[in-house]
């Protein structure tokens, strides 16, 4: 167990350094200095030089990189020269909304996927299995923005149950909050739940072919008991690996979904910053999201070793 964590950590730190270099390197790709971009093309050369000197943009790359990373490690990502907001503060303000959406998406997707996968794998080749695998394959082929356009048209425009755009915070009342939460959540679940169902079904089918299942059947255990108590746990490996990867999907997906439905989360902050070429915000988000991703995957690895003792030694 300890060696597993240690091995992961020898990857963790170099990867984090590389990510921070990639993020910092973005500035180098943009033509022109920050002063030129913020003050516009009619600014005098002295004013541009003054502006660059004030925010330290005239220093060599590695000096800027070191001070940016040093401050980032202390939780300070600087103040954006474009939107004049503190980057760390902006991330902290928008994070809870995105985390709420992501957490609920994971929870609901698991609540849908686990029973469906068990039903499907337990009755392989039956009508139910065909409907579940066929249905998840079809939903899987729908990009998030296609689902967003469709559900908005049907649920918000035709049926008029929920608003098609906007966001009510919890303070506006639970009902109002849930109404604006429903559509974004539906879209994200439609992306994640079919992936979970497919992967878990495949693993369950493989586990069901093993000898210990046959011996459990021979001892007269019921199908439900075998499925839930014997087969589910050893089949969770891929699903757990996937939760780490789905986190990445959810951050990417939240960019589309939050701009589409006007949800004031991290995804909207990304889209807005890209639009206004606010690179400092994007750099900060890349760094923090990558850090969260690595931490989450480390956690998943540990969790996997707990679920499956075979993994504690191997790999």
């Amino acid at each position, binding site marked *: 167990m300890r060696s597993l964590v240690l091995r992961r950590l020898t*990857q963790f730190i*170099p*990867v984090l350094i*590389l*990510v921070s270099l*990639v*993020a910092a390197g*973005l*500035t180098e*790709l*943009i033509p022109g200095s920050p002063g030129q971009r913020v003050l516009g093309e009619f600014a005098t050369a002295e004013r541009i030089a003054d502006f660059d000197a004030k925010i330290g943009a005239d220093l060599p790359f590695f000096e800027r990189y070191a001070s940016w990373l040093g401050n980032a490690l202390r939780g300070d990502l600087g103040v954006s020269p474009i939107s004049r907001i503190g980057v760390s503060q902006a991330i902290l303000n928008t994070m809870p909304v995105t985390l709420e959406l992501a957490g609920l998406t994971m929870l609901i997707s698991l609540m849908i996927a686990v029973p469906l996968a068990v039903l499907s794998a337990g009755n392989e080749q039956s009508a139910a299995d065909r409907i579940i695998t066929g249905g998840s*394959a*079809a939903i*899987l*082929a*729908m*990009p*998030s*923005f*296609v689902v967003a*356009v*469709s559900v*908005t*048209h049907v649920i918000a*425009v035709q049926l008029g149950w929920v608003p098609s755009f906007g966001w009510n915070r919890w303070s506006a009342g639970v009902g109002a909050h849930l109404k604006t939460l429903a559509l974004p959540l539906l879209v994200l679940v439609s992306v994640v739940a079919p992936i979970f169902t497919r992967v878990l079904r495949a693993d369950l089918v493989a586990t069901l072919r093993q000898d210990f299942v046959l011996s459990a059947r021979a001892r007269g255990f019921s199908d439900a008991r075998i499925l839930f108590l014997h087969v589910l746990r050893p089949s969770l490996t891929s699903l757990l*690996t996937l939760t780490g*990867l789905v986190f*990445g*999907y959810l*951050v*990417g*997906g939240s*960019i*589309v979904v939050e*701009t589409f439905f006007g949800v004031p989360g991290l995804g909207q902050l*990304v*889209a807005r*910053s*890209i639009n206004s*070429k606010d*690179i400092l915000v*994007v*750099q900060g*988000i*890349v760094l923090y*999201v*990558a850090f969260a*991703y*690595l931490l989450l995957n480390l956690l998943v690895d540990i969790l996997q070793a707990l679920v499956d003792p075979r993994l504690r030694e191997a790999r």
Partner: protein
Amino acid sequence: MSATTAAAVPRQAKRRNRSHRLPLGALFGVAWFGLMVVVALTVQWLPIHDIATPAGPSNLSPQWAREVLGTDEVGRSVLSRILYGARTSLAIGLAATLLGMVVGGLMGLFSVYFKGTVSWLVDILATTVLAIPSLLFLLAIVLALEPSIPVLIWSLSVITIPPFMRLARANALSQMSSEYVEAAQVMGASAGRIIFKELLPNAALPVISYAVLVLPSLIVVEGSLSFLGFGVQPPTPSWGGMIALARPKLTTAPWGAFIPCAVLFLTVYSLNQIGDHLRVRFDVRDSNL
């Protein structure tokens, strides 16, 4: 996989092919995707309206006699834009997939052959790419460089490198200890010979069949970028861009958004079906993609 079973695999697959028909989904997939490829290749000779000039009044509903799929909000033919959009989406998707497959596949093979530091370095690079969510990575690239089609192609290919690399490595790893690689090494074969003549042929099939699944995912990512307005730039037609353009008119002219949605869905579904079929056939070993 030992040398003997490796040689037996293609023969077995052929036999299986004869006894089992192509599944219905894959059959449909081949037909639809084939149609899209033909359209993408021949679109400039097809008898359709020009994409730049209006074909009729704006927001014309689909009519068989006038405009089969209607017109968009400036009166351009939706049919023409869908067909030209097929060329954009497929060209970007295919180019990026091929680039990612070659670079990622070779990285995988090299890391198997050279082990040690090379393998560690390749792993670190792959994890770095994986740690940044792909859409966020692409948007950051697009923010720094303008979203031209070459920039889209290489940045899309970068996000496919880690899975291709891991797949090639998983398939080549077992061969490194096989008798035929050992025999080649004893004969004094160079690194290049072992990588390209011994490891590559056996890793190629699973990697190529996996590429069929990467292509639709890249079409979706390109669609998302264009939908957000950061991908293919107008006036070049793209399916994601068409959906974004038609979105404000969803109440009065829903077909403008639904037609590109349906075409995108059918294309992704087709490729997924073909890819799933190939994957089962060539036994792709999934390695924590």
